[in-house]
Every structure is written in C-alpha cells, then in structure tokens.
C-alpha cells in the first residue's frame, strides 16, 4: 500500500531522489513497523526523535511492532529539534 513519508530538517536528504517539499509517496507492507521504516531509509535511530503518524506521536517502545498503518497515512519524522 502507499503511504506518505515526510522527513524534516537534515533528514530531508534521506528521502528518495525527486522528493519535493520534504515528502514522498512510498510503498510499504501492511505489516511494517515504524523502526523497519526508519531503518529502510537509513535514518539513524537516535535521529528519529519525533515520529508522528497522522500527527500523533509514537513513542520509542511502540516502534518495533507492526503498526497497522493504513493506505495514505502520513508518517513524519524529525531529529531532535526545538524552537519557540
């Protein structure tokens, strides 16, 4: 199925070639875990600090099991960032 992967800040460089505006449509298996997704795009795990699925934060311990992603879900990932 297809989902949207969004990688921000310097993680943007890890998106597939041709990705624009920090996002790409990608194919994944329904059984994929978030950590498998993180590894597939060679995101160092400590750099996957803020992981949001459709805007909802997923904590570290929930990233290893199959995540029950649905078609067209958006997975957005940031390294440690802050502002204000």
């Amino acid at each position, binding site marked *: 199925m297809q989902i949207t992967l*969004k990688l*921000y*800040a*310097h993680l*943007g460089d890890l998106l597939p070639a041709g990705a624009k*505006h*920090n996002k790409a449509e990608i194919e994944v298996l329904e059984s994929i875990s978030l950590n498998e997704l993180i590894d597939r795009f060679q995101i160092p795990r*400590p*750099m996957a*600090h*803020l992981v*949001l699925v*459709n*805007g*909802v*934060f997923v*904590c570290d311990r929930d990233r290893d099991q199959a995540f029950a992603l649905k078609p067209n879900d*958006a997975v*957005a990932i*940031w*390294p*440690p*960032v*802050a*502002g*204000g």
Partner: protein
Amino acid sequence: MAWTKKILRVNLTDGVISAEPLNMEWAQQYLGQRGLATRYFVEEVDAQVGALSPDNKFIMATGPLTGTMASTGGRYSCITKSPLTGTIACSNSGGFFGAEMKNAGWDMIILEGKSPTPVYLYVENDQARLIPAEDLWGKSVWATDEEIHKKHQDPQIRIACVGRAAESGNLFAAVVNDLHRAAGRSGVGTVLASKNVKAVALRGTRGVGNIKDMKRFMDATFEHKKVLAANAVTGAGLPTYGTQVLMNVINELGALPTRNMREVRFEGAHSVSGEAMHEPRASDGKKNLTRNGGCFGCTIACGRISSVDRTHFSVKDKPQYWGNSGGLEYEAAWALGPDTGVDDLDALTYVNFLCNEDGIDPISFGATVAAAMELFEDGVITTEQTGGIELKFGSAEALVKIAELTARGEGFGKEIGLGSKRLCEKYGRPELSMTVKGQEFPAYDPRGIQGMGLTYATSNRGACHLRSYTVSSEVLGIPVKTDPLATDGKPELVIAFQDATAAVDSSGLCIFSTFAWSLDNIAPQIDAACEGDWSVEKCAEVGARIWQLERDFNMRAGLTAADDTLPKRLLKDAANVGPAEGKVCDLGAMLPKYYELRGWTTEGQLTPETRQRYGLPS
C-alpha cells in the same frame, strides 16, 4: 560581571540623572533583570497608573550573568506597564545592548517622567546625558541607529530605539536594539516613545567584575557550554534551522493556528518553513537563509540572517531591501504567514524587515491583520476603511501594503496599531479577537496543545508562549514527553515552566538554553558568579516569587479572574482536522487546580498565606 550594584536613574521631566546603589536585599530575593526590575517597579509605580502617563516608569534591566562568559548571557529586559494589556510588561531581548549596559557599569536604567522634547540617552561608562533628538524623531530604527553612530563617530556604540510605529501610538510597538533584536511584546516601545525618548545609546569599556568565585565560574561556564554543544537541539538543530523548524512540526500536529485561528492546519506551511528557507530560489539560486547569527556570548546562535528575492514584487523597486537582514523566526513567520493565510516566503521576510526597521511586534501585527482580514471577509469593514486594500486572507499584496502603512503609522495602519482587541471591539465583533488580556496569541493552538491554553490564560503579560513553553514537553519531549491532548498534570507542568522561566529570565541568560539546560546547569553558574547561595531550589523559589509578584501587580491594576480565559473560538469551536479534531481547549479542567496550587483564592487573588510565604511587599 555579576551585579554591578549600581542603578542609573534618569528623571526625564527635569533632566536630572543620578546613580544609586542596587538594593542587594532585593537582589537576593529577585535575582536580577525581570524579577528585580519588577520589584523596583511595583515599589515605585502605582498599579493603576495610565501606561502612557508620565507617571509610568520604564526600566531597562540586565541580569547578573548578562555580559559574562556564560553562554547566552547577553540578555536584557524592558519592564513597564503595558499600554496593550494594562498588565505588567516585561520584554526580553538579546543582541549586544544588554552586555554593553553591563560593561558600562549598570545593572539597570530607570527612566521616569516625560521629557518636554524628544531626546536620547547617551551613556558612556559613568557619564550619562540626555541629548536633543528632534532631528531623529520621525525616523525609523535603522535610520536612527545610523545617525547616532555617525554623530558620535563610534561604531561600537550599542543602540536600542523606537521607530515611527511607536511615535504614532501603535500599541504593540517594540524597542529594537542592534538593528534587528527586539524587546518585542506588549508595547514597551510605545511607552518609551510616550516619554519622548527616541533611543538609549551605550558605550561600556569597564569589563568584568564582581564575580564571586572567578575560577569556579570559569569552570562552570566551560562545563555547561559543553552540554549545549553536545545537545542535538542546541548544538545542531537551532543553529541550522532556527526556531522556524517548528513550522512543519506544529502543522503536522494540527496545532498551527490558521486564518485568525479558524483552522488548525495551513496548506501552505511548507512554503514558509525553516526547510523552505534552505531551498534555492528560482530567480537567483540563492537561499532565503544566508547564515545564522548569535547574540553576545552565545554558543547556540539560532538567529537568522536572510535576504529577499530581488525580483519579488515587494522589493523590486527598493534596492535598500536587497541586502541581508534579520530573518524569520517561527513566531513571526506564523503570525505573518499561516495566521493571515499568506504562503509567500519573500513577502513574509520583507514584512519582517519592516517590523525591525520601524519597531513593531510581528506577532501582534500579524495576528491583528488576521483579525482585520476576518472582519473584511465578513463585510464588517470594506475598502472604504482600508483605503482601497482588498484585505483578504492569503493576499501577500495586502499584507505588504498594510505592513508599510503600520510601520509609518499611516492610513489603515493606524487602526491595525490598536491591536486586535480594540480593533474588533471598535467594529462591534469582539469575539473575532484572538487575544488574552488584550495581547495577541503566538503560534500554538491550545486545542491541539492543551497546556498552552492554560499558559495563555494565566500568563502575566497576556497571551504569550515565553512565560511557560510547555510545547517543549508536550510536543518536543524536553525534558520529558507529555500528551498534548491531555489536561491531567498540566497545571503542575505549567507552574514548573512558569517558575523556571522567571528565574532564567532574571539571570541574564536566554530561555533557549533550556532546550539543553535545566536549573541543574544554570544554578551552579549563578552560584559561582553571585553572592549568596544559589541552589536549584532557591532559583525555583525565586522564580515562583517573581510570578506571584507580577500577578499581584496585575490584580492591583484591576484585572480579575475573569481575565484568565481564552477567546470563545478556542473554548467552543472544535478543531476541524488532525489529532485534536473534535476537541476544544478544556481550560475549565485545568484552571481551578492551577489556582489552588498557586495558593490563590477562587477569585484568583493571592491568599495572605501565599503573600507571606513569598515575602511579598504589602
């Protein structure tokens, strides 16, 4: 140096300038800058004073670590009563001005009364004088800065001044120092201009002194700088992307207030984000962001230096704006962008330049334009009021024109200068004003980040993110991640943030250091520099005391518990998309507990026990 133990008092009415010793008993209770200046302010000024009356005072204050080798120790604050909110105003700024004040030998400058004619204050170490400024009145911040440097033939003078917006009575005018650093919020610039003071210009060459234990201080500052450098946020994220990295985060979270807070996601967020500032533009291949920049002594350097595309409609005939200047920070980018529905990065950058050039708070400005856009789209105001401007959401042209008028205090820009509350009241639609206590919201929707609802409602200077940045915890996981949609535990979280922030704001350090530092890192630096015992516990207690003192002032000024609330839109209209879909801000679930934990009555007044516990003045 830690405290210089000296205050410069300037009576503008009769022109008398005097030096006096710092009250060291108060310094032990209130530390410096925000806290200590507020202690002086409440002692000397009747809380009922008219903010623009000569009886209001205006204090510029440094903290004990301002101007030292502690990282981020370049801050100063402007403390006065706000013409926008009627509350205490305390606006903090970086750059180099604060450190220069310390190097000139002063902890604080207190300006009182009103000068009969325009003047600027010039301070060179022990020497201070008022200099006629008729020739500077009517000039922008940037022109004033240039003139004063020329006049004194000294490029090293540091200048804080007001622009044409403040002179025109704009109620959210800023004091801008070092060209593009601002004590931005609550109209502190308006108060300075009301006293006929155009600028304060400083030159200090006295260097560092009064450090309690120099060796320990050097070791402590060195140790904790390493913490900032090793931290992924303060060592890499902030210098590279600045605060603007938040634009996509908050949008994804469904907490990006859009079009006067009617919506919570902005379809154009990416175009005005920190990432977009790094993308080469089509016309000249240059990026919006030229480089980062830092304030005095800062090893984080989150500042943005940017340029506008020369072919962009806003500047194509104005070469004076083709160079590099202070770029977009997140709050400004949000107010000028998503809140007005404008997704044009160059337009936002140009308007941000104008805000610096003429001393306007970009948050209040953008949010007031957003309210005006809603009034326009509802047909409450028309081109008749706006002087022909089609003030529609999403119009970069309208935003640019209104910014030019507001900067100069002309046409409809004068009405924008009233701020959102007064503007919406004037046109009979007060419910469209997205403000608390008359001050416009910053860039986090409290339907999606519940703790920020409590933060806004209880902030002592009206809606503000810098009084308790619970976004750190609720979104970014610093120091620990909490659920942004939950209300449980938020009163405790808000209080912890409010107190720690008040202590940091009183030390002379920058609040952004707290993305890596806690009071465990900060207290040892204060303790090594300052007389007395400055443990973590004492710093937190000082922070709490400052909060109570500010609250007490506001209640004496006539505010009530009814002012601790949010606009109906956020309490009644649910978010339409994202994780907070269907949710409003549940302030009622947090506020009573907050009052109880603060030691206030159900009417929001300090109880006698609370006053006694913190030793507040009667």
